[in-house]
């Protein structure tokens, strides 16, 4: 019982960490960044390089974020900017970028599976249940991420302008907000978060050129049911992530892998706004 509750909480935390970057980009730019999976893979390999170089594994997270941010800047300038008015094409172009990132990594590192060093090993005792320390740490990291982003959006001028662009871009531009810059900053931040998420999941899964794809699909579905709110994303992660854990343990892991996608599709059919309030 306790183990299962911990499973649900930690799974939700991981999903939250993975999906925030995508949510941010979707909220501000109204486009789905299918390069999110590729950027996560990039982050995963950045973590691999960091730990192989003998640096502190914790350092892998900011370094992966940096890799993601730099790649994100280039992608926004070269590919995403011309596609603002063609959201379905943006999905395709960013998927193409995912292929490019995947193939470049394959050429550099080969197709093989690698393992990065975990920053935390061993277990902790929670209410008499010994549980993976790293998974527990992820809950703290995801919480810090959510709080940090909320503070950024609610407490700073850039956050205010970003929220203005989310609500009504034309009006925001009319009021003198440089929405191009807001979009650029958002995409960079979203890509940095994708890179960091890639590093965060390396201790849980292997590092390989296709590691981002399954996460991309889950993150994509979670973002679609959450709209543009960090809070409804949290709700979606807990409900759908929880359902995934329950189905995987009580029925079969294969069905568990389908849970998020299928449930999200059904939720959107019944309630198109998903977990968002209106």
């Amino acid at each position, binding site marked *: 019982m306790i183990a299962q509750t911990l499973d649900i909480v930690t799974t939700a935390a991981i999903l939250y960490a993975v999906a925030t970057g995508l949510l941010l980009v979707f909220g501000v730019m109204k486009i789905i960044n299918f390069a999110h999976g590729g950027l996560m893979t990039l982050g995963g390999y950045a973590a691999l390089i960091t730990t192989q170089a003998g640096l502190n594994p914790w350092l892998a997270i900011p370094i992966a974020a940096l890799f993601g941010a730099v790649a994100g800047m280039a992608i926004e300038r070269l590919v995403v900017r011309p596609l603002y008015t063609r959201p379905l094409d943006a999905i*395709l172009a960013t998927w193409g970028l995912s292929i490019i990132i995947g193939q470049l990594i394959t*050429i550099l590192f080969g197709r093989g599976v690698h393992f990065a060093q975990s920053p935390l090993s061993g277990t902790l005792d929670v209410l008499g249940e010994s549980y993976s320390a790293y998974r527990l740490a992820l809950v703290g990291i995801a919480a810090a991420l959510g709080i940090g982003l909320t503070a950024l959006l609610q407490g700073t001028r850039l956050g205010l302008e970003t929220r203005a662009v989310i609500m009504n871009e034309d009006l925001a531009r009319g009021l003198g907000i440089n929405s191009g810059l807001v979009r650029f900053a958002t995409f960079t931040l979203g890509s940095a978060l994708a890179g960091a998420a890639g590093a965060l999941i390396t201790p849980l899964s292997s590092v390989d050129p296709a590691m981002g794809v399954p996460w991309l699909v889950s993150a994509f579905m979670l973002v679609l049911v959450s709209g543009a709110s960090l809070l409804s994303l949290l709700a979606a992660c807990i409900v759908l992530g929880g359902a995934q854990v329950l189905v995987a343990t009580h029925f079969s892991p294969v069905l568990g892998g389908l849970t998020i996608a299928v449930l999200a599709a059904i939720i959107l*059919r019944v309630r198109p706004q998903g977990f968002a309030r209106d």
Partner: protein
Amino acid sequence: MTEARRLSLILLVALAALVAVAVGPFLLDTYSVNVLTRSLLYAAVALTVDLLWGFLGILTFGQSVFFACGAYAAGLVFTHMDFSGSNALVALGLGVGGALLTAAIVGWLAFWHGASALYASVITLVLPIVATQLLYSGGTFTGSSSGLSGFTSFDLSVEAWFWLAGSFLVVVTTLAFVFVKSDAGRLLVAIRENEQRCKYLGLDTSRLKIVVYLVCAVVAALAGYLYAGYAMVVAPELASFVFGTELVIWTALGGRGTLLGPVFGALIVDYESAQLSGSYPFVWQLIIGVVFVLVIVAFPRGLLPVVFDIPRRLLGWLRPRAARAAVTLSTLDLAETQGVEPGNGPALAVSGVAKRFGSLTVLDAIDFEARAGELVSLVGPNGAGKTTLMRCIADGAERSAGAIVVNGYDIGRKPPEACVALGVGRKFQMANVFETLTVAECLQIARARHARPSLWRRARDLPLPKAAMHVIATTGLDRQLATPAHLLSHGMKQALELSMVLALEPRVLLLDEPTAGLTKTERMQIGSILIDLTRKQGLCVLLVEHDLDFVREISSRVIVLHQGRIVLDGSVEDVVASELVKQVYAGSGHAGIAHETASPDRGSAEAVSSAKREMPV
């Protein structure tokens, strides 16, 4: 070019393609023939992606699943039941049936009334993920991750498979080509361009999408069936999201909405992948990725149109381009008009209609009736609920309470296309036409509900009801039949939309500010058309209008809406003489109005007089 010549030209090209398929194995080495057989089948699936995405506007990631459905049906039957002639038929039936069933479920989920394009794409993305997981979990029955292999299949030579696959592709491509160039095929583009307008022209777009989706699923399943027969191996990758996106990539590279582009895109890329992936596996994928991104960003129409544009431009310099063969308009014989039989009672009866958005009430207790031959104007300031009322009459799902009876038939909760069938015609506030289609094509689509369009021919003449012809002749639209709608002036677009709506032969015509943004002359033209429609043709017209002088000239009755309620319903004279209307338009003293309608007392009289003083005009 006559219709017969056009069709025989297509047939001639198809025959040439069949000849190319026939001689192919004699010119190519066995390895290439082997690889190309697969590419030919993939190309047929890419063709279905183009029909759905390039023509209908549904970006689909899931066509791979239908391919796998046909392939696995063959693989499963031949593995578990042995190969025989009858079993081959069973497998074919299972493959096609399975694909139809899956497509029906997906179609029901993805194309319901009101689903967004993104949602439909999401569903087609979930489909391959579900399908591959199911195949993985099938154990020895589906062969799990390694799939099924080693089953016996049709005893055909490599060349015969090539011929089979090639003929299949040529036949399917020819049929698709004839279809998309036909009158019925143009409906797909119309849905992609403006689905809302299609619904309000009485077309059941959801059903149309599902039908096309089902046909595409069957074609993909047949290709998959042939694939399993020839390759004698099936694997879960056939159903995967990755293969689904590869199909989209080939379609985008070749050129969406061109049919031939995706076919050649699939043939070239898949064939080259097989040739090059041996020596440069990752670099080849990288190149495809880079080219794909470049094409999406810089050449969204794909490479085929780019290739074709160069010689076309060169030719264009040499000789002037022939004007597009126009359609001849004619007046529909009165005996052939097919409007709904008028039921009993008034043309339009609205009773107790209310519309609420959460706690906000936009319309409340709306009651009125209108007879045939009446021109009722709805006036009131912005936000009074005029357009909302129009929406409630044209779409049964819109209102929160009350009943609307058109021609004696209750519209219930029916969608817009069903309301059109009852005799409602709605013209939108902003001219709402099919921007990329020509005037004649727009009008043809408006008639599609009455005259079922041909699946393979193009009609040369277009009979339109008298009312529509009248508008077209008065405004001079008949001289611009071959002009694409987006090149029309604002006034002409309004006239086009009006004639499209009239082509539906409505009994109740809803016009939302038809004269907004028009010049004085155009406005008077529309005014005399409306008078003619009501007095001579006996239509019931409901008109939303801000220009009170215009309203006074043409209306037989005026309803004043204010804050979601009817505050006055009377003759033109009543309304012109009313202090209330002036007050409503002056925009002051809301409280005063409430008082006056409830109980006129001294206080409200003061409010009225103060409002009069503040009137800007």
